[in-house]
């Protein structure tokens, strides 16, 4: 690896539910370079979402450490994590997770509320993000007035609004038809190649995985496959 932008070092994570302990990750070792586009595949329950949650600071590991950029995410307190997330990671979810009461533009403006930008600047930046995903003409639409593919593109605009270095996408095309999925994947590729975003994407879709530069396969918490792909 040339440089290690995201590092999971000896990370273990288990969940306890109803007295039973389930070991999801066991001494996981993983590093991702800056500007990489990584697809993470694997059977259901293998721990993919768990990895994303640890990298994004939504969940904490039992042992080991998680570094993103220059920060040790695993060492941050619960109160430090929200501000860190707002500056460094953008999330894209399978079910889009837009707020239905807000318009597309307002959804994209939401994370900018946490920045020192003025209202006018926030609006300008959100409009710019919407433009990147090609939805300037849908700024005042509510999520219910958009197609699934459009919703996901708004969600991507929201994820990049604050210009984070890392984008974490959990099955971003899982709920989309082929052509919408392709549009979304194309946008993610462009974000990676043109804006140098480091992308960590979980997917079950081989076509989607092909778009990534690096393919990881996880099984029962272990990395069983790691290959670089041609563009």
């Amino acid at each position, binding site marked *: 690896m040339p440089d290690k932008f995201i590092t999971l070092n000896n990370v273990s994570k288990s969940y306890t539910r109803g007295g039973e302990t389930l070991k999801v990750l066991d001494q996981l070792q993983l590093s991702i370079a800056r500007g990489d586009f990584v697809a993470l595949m694997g059977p259901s329950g293998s721990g993919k979402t768990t990895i994303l*949650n640890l990298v*994004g600071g*939504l*969940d904490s590991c039992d042992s080991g450490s998680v570094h993103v950029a220059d920060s040790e995410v695993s060492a941050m307190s619960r*109160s430090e994590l*929200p*501000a*860190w*997330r*707002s*500056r460094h990671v953008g*999330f894209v*979810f399978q079910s889009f*997770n837009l*707020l*239905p*009461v*807000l318009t597309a533009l*307002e959804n994209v403006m*939401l*994370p900018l*509320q*946490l920045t020192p930008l003025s209202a006018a600047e926030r609006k300008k930046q959100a409009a710019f993000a919407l433009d990147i995903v090609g939805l300037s003409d849908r700024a005042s639409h509510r999520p219910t007035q958009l197609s699934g593919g459009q919703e996901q593109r708004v969600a991507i605009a*929201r994820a990049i609004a*604050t210009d984070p270095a890392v984008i974490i996408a959990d099955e971003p095309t899982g709920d989309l038809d082929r052509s919408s999925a392709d549009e979304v994947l194309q946008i993610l590729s462009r974000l990676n190649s043109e804006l140098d975003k480091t992308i960590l994407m979980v997917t079950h879709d081989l076509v989607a995985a092909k778009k990534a530069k690096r393919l990881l396969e996880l099984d029962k918490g272990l990395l069983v496959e790691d290959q670089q792909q041609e563009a």
Partner: protein
Amino acid sequence: MQFPFRLAMRHLMARKARNGLTVLAISIAVFLLCFLIAVVQGMEEGIRSASSHRLVTQSAVSLFVDLPTSYQQKIDTIDGVHLTTKFRWFGAYYQERKNFFAQFAVDHPRFLDMYTKDIEIIEAVGGTTGPAARAAVQKAFSSDRRAAIIGVGLRDGERFGFQLGDTVPLIPSIYPRADGNAWEFVIVGIYRPLKARIPDTTMYIRADYINEAFDSGEALGSRGAGVYYVNTEESVPIDQVAKDIDALFANGPQRTQTITEAAFASFFVSAIGNLPLFLGTIGGAVLFSIFFSVVNTMMISGRQRLQESGILQALGFRPIVSTMLLIWEGLLISLLGGGIGILLALATEGSLIRIFAQNIQNYQISVPLMLLALGISALLGIVAGLAAGIPFLRSSPTDALRSSG
């Protein structure tokens, strides 16, 4: 500014029907609250303003049984009694029954002297105003047996508009005249109440005119005093005077019950049916149930918004932001409802004062009362928002995200 105010507004607007009903419910509750407190305060104010040197002697049987006029001389002789006057309910009305106001037949030579601290005479027939007005009214009251003194409310009220010098016909409902006509009274003076317990719509007429009319057969009724108002001397304990009066008539012909004016005023309060307690109980129950329905409404919103809390956390907002959102929304709803309720109370204040004129002299939506109502509304919103929003603080972002919206 890290707080998404716009999101709160959008949530409120997204559920117009539900939130509108909640606003309506709160406005009714707050109106009711203002109304009840104003009623109770008005009644208490009336009692508080009663003279501490005045007794009311009434029949021990019932307030509605007249005491004989012969009692007055005897009461006058009791040690500690300063002045007495008959005080008899006349019960007539002007033109229509709904134009009702109180008239009391009093002893014209004494009444004004007994009521120096209770009413201020502001104008006498002939136009005398200022300090000289009282003497001028006393003179006019004595010189015409049909003379009457009225409160400013009867001069200024739309339905009355009685002016000095006017002859006012009053249609009897208790004491009909033999000729079947209305009684006629001539306005000779106008007073303004100095005490909360005294309405500004009372008419004081001469007891001797009424009694003589009964004696001569001019009107149907029997000579009587109604009750006696007794001003006492400061040198003698008022309780002693009351005891002495009642002792005097212990053997009849009619036994008396003498109580302080304050007790008499509170008797009237309870005579209108324990209204404060009754309304208080119902109002309390209504408030209580509305309170819980508001909390419940907010808690439903809260559960529906756990996922939103997860999304907001993923975007970098703290969990408390979701709690604050619900508190803010609760506050907006409850303050809007409370504001409307207060406006409603203010808008109806005038007509309620008119309706209550005879019973509650001081019905008033005061500034402290409005502030209290606003405070209670705010508290309601905050508590409802807190109840709905507290669970967000305990949920982890991953659990919140997994919940379905």
